[in-house]
């Protein structure tokens, strides 16, 4: 009972600060839109090509934007006086990881609610008929990014060059969910039955489960002084 209450408290606090300052969401929105525009302008007005690689462009935009928000995961704690205030809470310190993970997941999913329709317009793709499978793939892919990202953000928290160390460590770790999400999304967008994407969906599920268990287990070591 105590652990879910503390997780909810962190999510409530982080979302309240985000709603009040809009510090992360607005910059994430602007950055992701910029990534999509830059890619589509660089490739040119070749609509069939853009459609073929739409899923890749979309997920690259999500990963890059995710890096932006993940690097800020513990920023509010640092400004508030460090992680000590949270670590002094009674009980298992893993509630910090779970709360931060939930906050990152919600923020990225909120971004995707805007980003997927924007990509549909930009790349002239029919997404609405595939909304349900796309939502499932987005949830699994985003969970993978948030699970690993929240943990690596804690690992690099006290590093002097954390802005560069986080992407250097995290991007290689995100190759499996990126592969799974891109391939599953593209198969669905190409009008294939959802069953054809089962292999990639299974990869996403396996990654999410393994990383969630391992990162949650190791988190106390990542924040220990």
């Amino acid at each position, binding site marked *: 009972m105590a652990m879910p*209450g503390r997780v909810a408290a962190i999510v409530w606090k982080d979302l*309240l600060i985000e709603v009040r300052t809009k510090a992360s969401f607005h910059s994430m929105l602007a950055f992701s839109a910029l990534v999509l525009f830059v890619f589509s302008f660089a490739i040119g007005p070749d609509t069939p090509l853009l459609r073929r690689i739409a899923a890749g462009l979309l997920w690259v935009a999500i990963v890059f934007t995710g890096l932006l928000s993940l690097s800020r995961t513990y920023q509010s704690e640092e*400004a508030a006086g460090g992680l*000590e205030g949270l670590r002094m809470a*009674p*009980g298992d310190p893993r509630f910090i990881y779970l709360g931060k993970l939930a906050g990152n997941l919600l923020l990225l999913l909120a971004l995707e609610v805007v980003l997927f329709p924007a990509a549909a317009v930009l790349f002239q793709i029919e997404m609405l008929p595939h909304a349900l499978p796309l939502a499932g793939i987005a949830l699994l892919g985003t969970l993978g990014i948030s699970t690993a990202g929240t943990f690596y953000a804690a690992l690099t928290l006290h590093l002097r060059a954390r802005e560069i160390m986080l992407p250097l460590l995290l991007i290689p770790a995100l190759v499996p969910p990126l592969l799974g999400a891109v391939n599953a999304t593209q198969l669905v967008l190409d009008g294939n039955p959802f069953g054809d994407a089962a292999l990639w969906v299974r990869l996403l599920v396996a990654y999410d489960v393994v990383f969630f268990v391992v990162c949650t287990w190791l988190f106390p070591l990542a924040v220990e*002084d």
Partner: protein
Amino acid sequence: MLRGIDLTVEPGTSLVLTGANGAGKTTLLRIIATLLKPSSGEGTVLGLSLADDGESIRAATGYVSARGFAYDDLTAAENLRFAARLVDRPVPDERIAEILVGVGLGDATDQTVRTFSTGMRRRLALAVLRLRPLRLALLDEPYAGLDADGVALVDRLVGELVAAGTTVILASHQSGEATRRATRALRIEQGRLVDAATPDGRAG
């Protein structure tokens, strides 16, 4: 670096730690709070093992760090409400307001902490100690940045805690009533604890 620390504090008493900057006062408080693991040695806090019972020790301990702990974009009341939820003690709004009035922040309840002065931030940090009954309170530089009223507030707060049976350990450069009335005073010199005379001249 701390060396050969051998310290016993009687329950329900107050201890003042003094020492030069960097002597290790904060390090010692953080070890007692289970935020930092000692490289060697062992200890018990509230009868519990520092190495094995961190969760139980934290459940009965309040720690006010020198920097304090408050979110700039939350109001004083929201910060306190969050702190209460972290320790599984949801507190009604009336009690939150009462606590804030008690630390002199009655007019700033709905003000975001970003607008607070250093002294107001310190008062908010101290307010957390009134959220729940504690067996151990650790205060790092509690007088820093406070005006005369603030110093009196710390003294009153420490007096209340000790009267309620809470063991209080203060690390402080400045002296106040609480440091003068402390049961015991120790000084950290070159990483070791030595007896010190209390500021009013009593032996530690």
